[in-house]
């Protein structure tokens, strides 16, 4: 296992940034956020960032194509560009898992080339959690915060950061940095893992009921009378969907720039009333249906299409951010718990 003293971490970050684009969570006055590395930035040790890491692969807004319109004629311009190589340094286990959830949507046939392009050019250094919060519930979905996946797994223990490559991309990154890294045994890491798991075990939402959310129970859950009560205070904003690392619904829109048309895609939210609005009518008339759609999608629909993989990674952002504090943990307890 490779390692570096935390005091030398700035040098390591500089070395990566010298090679390719580097993004990492840094502390801001409003909590941790991912940003492009600038000399002097230090890695945030906050449990998680306000916005998720999905932005790197599925940004909130991206141009898809441009059109030149002249009279009756239209010309289509492909505006796609090859992404440069980049490193995401310090993503947590939940966010890393969310990439797998997104992969199954965007890399399914037909492949989304925008997403694939970014995915292929990225190297993810995942950092194990050392101070999880009360809103964390990744272990409910079988994610081990002490053993994050990604191209490289990293741990902080005893004043050092330890690295283990998991993929070819990870090997390449670490070997390029080998001059700064020392070889060390993994005893400290094992101890840190144990500590993290002990803390995880004390968190209130560690064992949310998941066993009830099976494809064969789709209609039973859909028709559950509890949706009415759960959804009644929902204000229909898109906070939960926009901070969610796995929400991937999008809208495609055209913008008339005055000298052409830009077709762009942007995040959309199933919580919005116009999400399914058609010219004449819409199938989800009230907030109840929209609210139900979001949670059914994460807990039942998505797993039904993806061998039981849940569409939630338990990062806890929606718990912290929902204006009315209604969230997936409460939904899971109401629907699947206490039985």
């Amino acid at each position, binding site marked *: 296992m490779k390692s570096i003293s935390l005091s030398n971490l700035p040098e390591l970050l500089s070395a990566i940034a010298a090679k390719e684009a580097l993004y990492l969570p840094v502390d801001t006055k409003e909590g941790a956020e991912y940003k492009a590395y600038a000399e002097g930035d230090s890695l945030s040790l906050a449990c998680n960032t306000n916005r998720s890491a999905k932005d790197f692969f599925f940004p909130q807004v991206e141009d898809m194509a441009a059109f030149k319109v002249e009279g009756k004629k239209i010309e289509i311009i492909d505006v796609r560009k090859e992404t440069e190589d980049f490193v995401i340094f310090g993503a947590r286990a939940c966010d890393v898992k969310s990439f797998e959830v997104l992969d199954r949507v965007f890399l399914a046939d037909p492949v989304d080339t925008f997403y694939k392009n970014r995915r292929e050019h990225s190297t993810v250094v995942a950092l194990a959690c050392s101070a999880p919060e009360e809103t964390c519930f990744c272990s409910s979905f079988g994610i081990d915060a002490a053993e994050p996946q990604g191209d490289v797994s990293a741990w902080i223990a005893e004043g050092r950061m330890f690295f283990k490559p998991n993929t070819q991309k990870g090997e390449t990154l670490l070997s390029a940095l080998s001059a700064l890294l020392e070889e060390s045994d993994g005893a400290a890491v094992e101890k840190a893992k144990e500590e993290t798991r002990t803390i995880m075990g004390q968190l209130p939402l560690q064992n949310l009921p998941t066993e009830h959310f099976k494809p064969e129970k789709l209609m039973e859950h859909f028709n559950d009378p509890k949706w009415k009560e759960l959804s009644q205070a929902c204000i229909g904003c898109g906070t939960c969907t926009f901070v969610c690392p796995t929400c991937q619904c999008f809208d495609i829109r055209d913008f008339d720039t005055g000298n052409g048309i830009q077709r762009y895609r942007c995040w959309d939210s199933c919580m919005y009333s116009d999400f399914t609005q058609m010219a004449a009518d819409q199938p989800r008339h009230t907030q109840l249906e929209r609210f139900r*759609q979001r949670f059914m999608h994460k807990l039942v629909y998505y797993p039904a299409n993806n061998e039981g993989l849940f569409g939630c990674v338990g990062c806890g952002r929606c718990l912290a951010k929902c204006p009315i504090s209604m969230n997936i943990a409460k939904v899971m307890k109401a629907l699947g718990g206490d039985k």
Partner: protein
Amino acid sequence: MEKEALIPEIGIVTDIRIDTPDVRTFRVVTPDGKKPFVHIPGQCAMLSIPGVGEALFSITSSPTNTEFMEFSIKKCGCVTSFLHSIEPGQYVTIRGPYGNGFPVESAFKGKDMLFVAGGIGLAPLRSVINYCRHYRENYGKIDIVYGSRSMQDLVDYNEIVEEWCKEDGISVHLTIDREQPEWDGHVGFVPNFVKELQFDTNKTAVLCGPPIMIKFTLAGLQEMGFKKDQIYTTLEMRMKCGIGKCGRCNLGDKFICKDGPVFRFDQLEELPDEY
């Protein structure tokens, strides 16, 4: 870079037929005059006018037509209103085909067919009807029940009268909602008409039309003795991508754009009724 499904191709509208006061049929070819792509009956395509919007339409022409593609489009929203204002020669963008289409080569093969359509609901059925006509030997007797508000609102009226009605083994039953002086056919709503006609229950039925028509026709057919697994329909919802990614057209775990739009009623029974 490899082909991106969401970036469309150019199509040219070469002909616009005015069917009814609010339905027009658009003929679309590629810039080099060919049919945009191969499809199966019941599949859809995304048409767009940049700056106006993109929307999904069922392909009205049959796959057996190898020269061009046709879309019968009713004026109701942004994109459709714009399409109704264009002239031949207008460029549009097109991508597809999307959806599963009708099982014309499997479940429908060798069967007596009953098509029930209301209003613009004929658009997706026209593709499969003409397909069955082209491969006549593969299908049994064909019954077509088609109704609309008035005589003027019957889409493809000429083709129905001039071609479908004159063909052996095809019975066409037309109806309109209200009496009209120049109309000597049946008057009444489609579901009641279907009940009056009393069809053999060995037929495979395909319904398409407004939700209320589907609901009552389905009930009528079931009363007659049809089973749900004999009845098909094709659904629509708001869609943005057409390839099961944008996340808005799902019925439970099924996406209408990818797993549909054609569903059998016994399949729909197991899904939420959010359509």
